C-alpha cells in the first residue's frame, strides 16, 4: 500500500495487505497489549516487550454514537466501539457505520479523516456502508 497511515505507530498492513494493529507481547509473562509502549508490562513489570502484530478483527462489546465533541474540527456524529480483539486485548476505535454488541467487525484502512491524504483505521461490520472514498 502506498498511501501512508494517519497513525503509523498504531497500525499498518500485514503481509497480505490486510490491516494489522501493532501490539506488544511481554517476553516475561506473555501478556499481549495494545498500543505499544516502551515503559514496561502492566502485569509483571518487565521492560522486555516484543513487538507483535494483532489481527484487526474482533467482536463488538459496546457501541456509542457520539453527538457532541468539544473539538469543533471533529465532525459529529461518529461511532465509537469497544472491540474485543480475536488476539486478546479489549480496545476502542472508530466504527465506519453503526454497530451493536455482538457484531463481528473487521478493520479497514480508508481515507476521509482529519488529514485527507492519510489512511485511517476504522472498524466495519460486513453490512456497513463504505466510508468516504470507498473501503479498503
Amino acid at each position, binding site marked *: 500500500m502506498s498511501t501512508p497511515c494517519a497513525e503509523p505507530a*498504531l497500525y499498518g498492513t500485514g503481509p497480505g495487505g490486510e490491516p494489522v494493529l501493532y501490539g506488544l507481547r511481554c517476553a516475561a509473562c506473555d501478556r499481549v497489549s495494545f498500543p505499544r509502549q516502551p515503559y514496561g508490562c502492566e502485569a509483571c513489570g518487565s521492560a522486555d516487550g516484543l513487538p507483535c502484530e494483532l489481527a484487526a478483527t474482533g467482536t463488538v462489546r459496546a457501541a456509542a454514537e457520539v453527538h457532541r465533541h468539544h473539538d469543533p474540527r471533529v465532525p459529529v456524529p461518529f461511532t*465509537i466501539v469497544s472491540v474485543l480483539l480475536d488476539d486478546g486485548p479489549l480496545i476502542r476505535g472508530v466504527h465506519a457505520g453503526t454497530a451493536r454488541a455482538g457484531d463481528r467487525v473487521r478493520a479497514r484502512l480508508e481515507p476521509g479523516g482529519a488529514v485527507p491524504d492519510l489512511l485511517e483505521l476504522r472498524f466495519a461490520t460486513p453490512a456497513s456502508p463504505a466510508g468516504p472514498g470507498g473501503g479498503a
Partner: protein
Amino acid sequence: MMRGTLADLRPVYVAGIGLHPYRRLSETPYVRLGLTAVRSALADAGLAWTDVDSAWTGTAGLGMAASRRMLRHLGATGIPMTQVENASASGSSAFRQACLEVAAGLADVSLALGVDKPSRVRAAPTGVAGLADRLVVPATHFALLADEYMDRHGVTAEQVAAVAVKNHRNGSRNPFAQRRKERTLQEVMDEPAVSGTLTRLQCCPIGEGAAAALVVSGEAVERLGLDPARCVGVTASAQRSERLYGTADPDTELTRETAGEAFRQAGITAADLDVVEVHDAFSIEELLYAEAIGLCGAGEAAGLLARGAFDVGGRCAVSPSGGLLAMGHPIGPTGVGQIAEITRQLRGEAGDRQQPGARTGLAHMLGVGAVCVIHVLQRLD
C-alpha cells in the same frame, strides 16, 4: 499494599463542615470560595483558626501554591499546608491525609479543604495514545459502559436516566447544589444526546466551589469543648489504584476492591449503609458502583432504583446531596463535599433531604488513572 489502617490508630471525627455553593464559573477569586467554606466549617465546629494544626487542600486546576495564598487571610499561624492532586478524587485524598495525620497523633485538628475553578486541566501526557483516545471523551467512555450494562442486564435507557431524575430531585433540596431544578424523566430524555444514550442531564456539570471539613481527635473534642453529639466518627479510609481486571470495567472492579477494604476497616457490611455518596459523574456510574459497593447484586440496581430503594427514605439513600450529577463536580471540592453531606445526614441536620435514622454513611470517589478513595463515617453515640 498498605500495612496498617485507620482502625489501627486513634479515633478521628469530623467536627465541622462548610461549603461555598457549587455554581458556574464566575469572576470570584478562588480565595473567596475557599475562605467562605473554611470560615463556615470553623463556625460549625465552634473552633478558631488558631486551633487548626495543619491544612490539606484538594485542587486540580488552580495552579501551584493554592493553600497558603488563600489561608493566610485567616491569620498567618505558620501551620503546614499542602496541596493534594488526585484528579477527581483530589478532595477525598486531602480528607484522607487530614484523617491520617490526626489519627497518627501528629495533629489534633486538621483542615481538609477542596477548592477549584473550571480550567483547562489535562492528565499528565504519557507519550502513549490508543486508537481513539482523542475522540473518546469521558461521556463516550461512560456511554460505552452504559451500552454494555443495558445489553448485559436487559436494562433500558430510561432506567439509566432515572438516576438523573432522582439526583436532580435531591439536588433541588440542596442549597449548595449547582443544579437545583427538579427534572422529570421526560425532561432528562428530551435533552440533546451527548454520547450514546447519555443526555446532557446525565452528565455532571463542572463548575466552581469549595468544601471544608475539620477533622479532630477525641482529645481535641475534650480539650476544645466541642459538642460530641455533632462529631461524626471516621471509621474507615481506604485508597487503592487500578490493577488489571481482564475485560471487566476497571473503575467498577477497583470500587469493589476498595469498598471491601473499607468495610473490613470499619467492621461493617454494605447492608449497614444508610447513606452513600458515589462518583456519579455520569448516570450509569451510580448503577455500576451501587452494585460494586454491594448495595445489591449485579444487574439489580436499575430495578431497585425504580422501586425507590435508593431514594431519600428508601433502603439506602444514594447521592442525597444530588451527587455529582446535580450538586456538581468542581473537582477539588467534590470529595470533601461528599463528607460534608454525609456528616450532615448522620447528624440529622439534612432538612428535607434527611435520610431517616441515618447512622452509617460511605463516600466514594474515583480519579482518572484510576484511583479510588472510600471513607466510612458513623454516628458513634
